[in-house]
């Protein structure tokens, strides 16, 4: 049975077990998507346990969402266990593995990691207070650090290896469900015309496409985009950079 045979509104009313059955037995990817969205609050709750480990909470949530996706994929319909129960160790395991194996792409002093983790909230608070984007000097004063340390912490944040777009949906084990939900990766053709990045947009997940459209077509500042998509300004900045980088790579 095809995805379109089940309207989204109907899926939303179904119990987890029925959605799991539809996904595993009927290949209803919409059911899987509904399950992911339904249990993202669980992922957020679990991710919060690691909020003070020197990495942005949003990045940890993305990692945890992979654990959720794996739990849905591996779920055995013959077992009498709730999906949330089954998913919890999968989500925690994924987060722990991430901290152990991937972590910081370069060796970064812990103090800088922690400074980077505090940066996002500070920038948002100052932006709200000042009614404009804060300067590095203002961020540094709020964090009681030097401008150089602030810049370094910003930079190590961009070197932190989250589940980047460059990982790509082809790497099945590491695919980020938040980035692949709703994406249409089929039919992408290599573009030889580097004047136009447009064709490479189709290779991005829907959220990244939406962010790029908001930034470069509608001209919205990062902070407004962050509000609309529910991410921090720093995270939006990282996604824009990575998306543009990934698009350029597609054209090479």
């Amino acid at each position, binding site marked *: 049975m095809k995805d379109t045979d089940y309207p989204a509104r109907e899926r939303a009313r179904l119990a987890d077990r029925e959605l799991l059955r539809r996904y595993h037995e009927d290949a209803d990817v919409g059911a899987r998507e509904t399950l992911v969205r339904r249990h993202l609050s669980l992922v957020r709750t679990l991710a919060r346990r690691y909020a003070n480990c020197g990495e942005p909470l949003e990045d940890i949530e993305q990692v945890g969402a992979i654990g959720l996706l794996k739990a849905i994929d591996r779920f055995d319909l013959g077992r009498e266990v709730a999906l949330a129960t089954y998913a919890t160790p999968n989500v925690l395991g994924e987060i722990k593995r991430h901290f152990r194996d991937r972590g910081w792409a370069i060796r970064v002093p812990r103090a800088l990691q922690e400074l980077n983790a505090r940066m996002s909230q500070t920038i948002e608070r100052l932006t709200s207070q000042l009614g404009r984007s*804060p300067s*590095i000097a203002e961020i540094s004063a709020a964090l009681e650090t030097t401008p150089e340390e602030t*810049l370094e912490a910003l930079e190590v944040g961009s070197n932190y290896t989250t589940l980047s777009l460059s990982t790509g949906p082809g790497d099945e084990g590491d695919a980020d469900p938040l980035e692949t939900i709703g994406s249409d990766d089929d039919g992408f053709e290599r573009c030889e015309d*580097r004047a136009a990045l447009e064709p490479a947009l189709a290779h991005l997940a829907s959220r990244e496409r939406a962010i790029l459209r908001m930034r*470069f*077509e509608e001209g919205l500042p990062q902070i407004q985009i962050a509000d609309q998509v529910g991410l921090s*300004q720093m995270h939006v900045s990282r996604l824009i950079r990575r998306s543009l980088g990934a698009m*350029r790579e597609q054209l090479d």
Partner: protein
Amino acid sequence: MSERISLEVPLDATFGPVVRLIVGGIVERADFGFEDLDDLQLAIERLLAEAGHEGRVRLDFQLGAGRIRTRVGPLRESGLADALQVPDASPGGGMTLGRVLATVVDSYGFELTSEGDVLVRLEKLAGKTAA
């Protein structure tokens, strides 16, 4: 304040973070906002990404009152001039390097050298990004 800073860097991705840090330090001296800093870093990063992975590129910064002018080049041409054309401003007008630059800096332009390479000029004004 009116200061000039010049540097020459290898066109090697491993130096990308170094360039970002230096640009950050320069922008910090001009007391720009965080998003302005991010914008200028992104503009330079995208230009360097177009320049390939071999050779060197020169970056010249001129700090004035509330503005930073940057010159990047020479960059290998190979279609770059087309990519830098003024973007179609209409919705759905296409995502081009020109559109990216037009968004993140206040003005930009380019010229071709006698060797056929491209020199790109960027101008970023402070305080244009409100919350």
